[in-house]
């Protein structure tokens, strides 16, 4: 769906983005990560043709941005806000109209979404009468009402209560099912971890991690196995391919010399202990993020 190659943008001598390359497929949830000021917003703005890049190509299904591209993208900016004095329903219809959907068609859609977000009865009220969270729901509706092929959401979960976070997650998965390519930019690692297929991590304008999430996790995989058991675990320290073992009463953390021998370990333990839990511990995205962004030379060099 979207292919960005070697993007570069400079403002008054300050490099905002340099060498960002990414690809988002239809039906894919793509996480755009990075600390504050890393260049996420600049990247999004160039994709949406709001600003022109100094270098680099952006293609939608192999074609550059044209007048018809406006209507197939949807956007939720990070900082929220709408016309305060306008009515909710007319604001939604206006933005849908700008995306090429006649009010006749968009009105039933708008009502449908408002109902889903529990705002149907408020639709003739003014935006300023809504709470912040509810305003954000209206903005979310605006971003995907026209059923875009590429939906870009900047921190979509921030500001929503847990119930609505689940609702939004469901809606995003539905859109993904329908084949929408979704990019979301965030610092909330758990959301990315649970939902995203691929990620791109940007730091100081440069991409430092890029690719499918499980690949990345594998690349940064550690050799840790956590187990819970009944029985005596003293023998764990004696196993030859275990480098280090922290053994507690019913719990142990093991570091293997080679994670590929974990099945062998499982079979071995099964004979000697009553295993309650056997877990190969993946590094959390959070720890990868901190490691990479924290400037650990080891990780940076891995990615060139």
């Amino acid at each position, binding site marked *: 769906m979207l292919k960005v190659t070697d993007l570069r943008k400079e403002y008054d001598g300050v490099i905002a983005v340099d060498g960002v390359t990414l690809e988002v497929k239809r039906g894919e949830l793509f996480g755009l990560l990075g600390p504050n000021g890393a260049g996420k917003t600049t990247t999004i*703005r160039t994709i949406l*043709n*709001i600003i022109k890049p100094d270098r680099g190509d952006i293609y939608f299904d192999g074609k550059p941005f044209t007048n018809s591209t406006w209507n197939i993208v*949807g956007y939720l*900016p990070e*900082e929220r806000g*709408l*016309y305060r004095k306008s009515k909710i329903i007319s604001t939604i219809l206006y*933005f849908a109209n700008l995306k090429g959907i006649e009010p006749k068609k968009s009105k039933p859609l708008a009502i449908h979404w408002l109902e889903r977000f529990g705002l149907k009865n408020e639709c003739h009220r003014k935006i300023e009468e809504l709470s912040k969270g509810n305003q954000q729901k209206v903005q979310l509706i605006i971003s995907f009402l026209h059923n875009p092929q590429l939906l870009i959401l900047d921190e979509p979960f921030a500001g929503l209560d847990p119930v609505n976070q689940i609702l939004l997650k469901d809606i995003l998965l539905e859109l993904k099912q329908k084949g929408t390519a979704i990019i979301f930019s965030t610092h909330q690692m758990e959301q990315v971890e649970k939902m995203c297929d691929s990620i791109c991590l940007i730091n100081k304008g440069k991409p430092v991690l890029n690719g499918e999430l499980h690949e990345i996790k594998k690349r940064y995989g550690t050799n840790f196995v956590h187990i819970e058991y009944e029985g005596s675990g003293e023998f764990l320290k004696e196993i030859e391919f275990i480098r280090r073992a922290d053994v507690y009463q019913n719990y142990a953390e093991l570091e293997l010399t080679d994670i590929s021998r974990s099945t062998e370990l499982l079979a071995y333990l099964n004979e000697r202990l009553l295993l309650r839990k056997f877990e190969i511990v993946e590094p959390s995205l959070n720890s990868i993020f901190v490691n990479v962004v924290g400037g650990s030379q080891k990780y940076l060099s891995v990615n060139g």
Partner: protein
Amino acid sequence: MKSKALKVAAWEFMEKVKSKAFIISLILMPVIIGGMAVLPAFFASKEDTYSIQIGIIDGTEKLIEPLGEKLDSKYRLSHDQPIYFLRNLSVGRSLEEGRAEGARMIASDAIEGYFYIPSFVFDSGKIEYRTKNVGNFKIQERFSRVFEQVITEMKLSSYGLDTALVQELTARVEIKPIKISDKGEESETSFGETFAKSYVGLLMLIFMILTSGQLLVRSMVEEKSNRVIEVLLSSCTPRDIMVGKILGLSGLGVLQMLVYAVLGVALALKTNMNLLQPEYFAFTLVYAILGYVLYAAIFVAAGSPATTEQEAQQITAYISMLMVAPFALIMLVMQNPNSLLVKVLSYIPVLTPSVMVLRVAIQMPPAGEIFATILLLLVSIAIMMWIAGKIFRIAILSYGKRPSLSEIINWVREK
């Protein structure tokens, strides 16, 4: 993508028509203009309804008597009482005492004010008037006229001329103005009517441009601060947004003008004022709309770099100054609508709409000039829109610090 600009225009128009600011200005403006244009004239020409006490300190000791006679015969209330009662403050007092008494009486409102006539008035021609209310020019004007007459008569009779002859010599002439149109038709018109017509036309133009300009700048600042602009920019081009805004605003202006045109026709029918000449109406409308669009572009160019409400207000204030300048020109244009200066001013684009609205009201300019100024306005609008587009494109995404002038010039130069 022209249609997207129209969609923006339709939205801007509908949302602003419903806004309180617009409705208030729609109702308030005729009231304010009525107040500013009509009330002073109304009060100035108001019949005198009560008598006024005026003190006199007569250093010559011979002016007060003929002065009183002249005032008595000239200015009388409707029930035949004299308007002005003179109180001689110098009787039995020295000059200093007289003055002190005058000041005391003014303070206690026993007299409206007092005139001090120095003994050398026949040579200097200067008389002093002391009062709380210096702005009441009616008394000053009337008294100076009567003083003039009395002094002239006294001087002439001191040369041995007979009083009757003096009165004949100093007879006043009154001029009745009759306006002749280009077609040679005569119409009786007063200074007041022409003044009102041009004044009201200009006031309406300035008020409308300012109120809507303010709406425009404020909506740009709002869109910037709530980031709606980013959603808009992910739906259409900056040019669409800008053109849409200017079109929507102009639509607002046309609506406003139509409302006032209806009011104007009603007023004209009621007062028999000569407002109904079709060409006056048509050209005022043309210049007003062109001026509207030109200033809308100026407001976009100047207002889009603003990031806070205060900055927006400052900018509107600067542009207001530019707009109010033509008020100083009303008299100039009225006295000589064909002078070189007025012609030159007609070709300064930011002044063209207002100066031409004045000229159309006072004396229809030749067709060639109308054609040239309209063409000039169209060209200026095109150039201003181009510049505004350049600035708008970058300015709407710059938050935080306000860009310097040289940065803005760079934006315009950038391709």
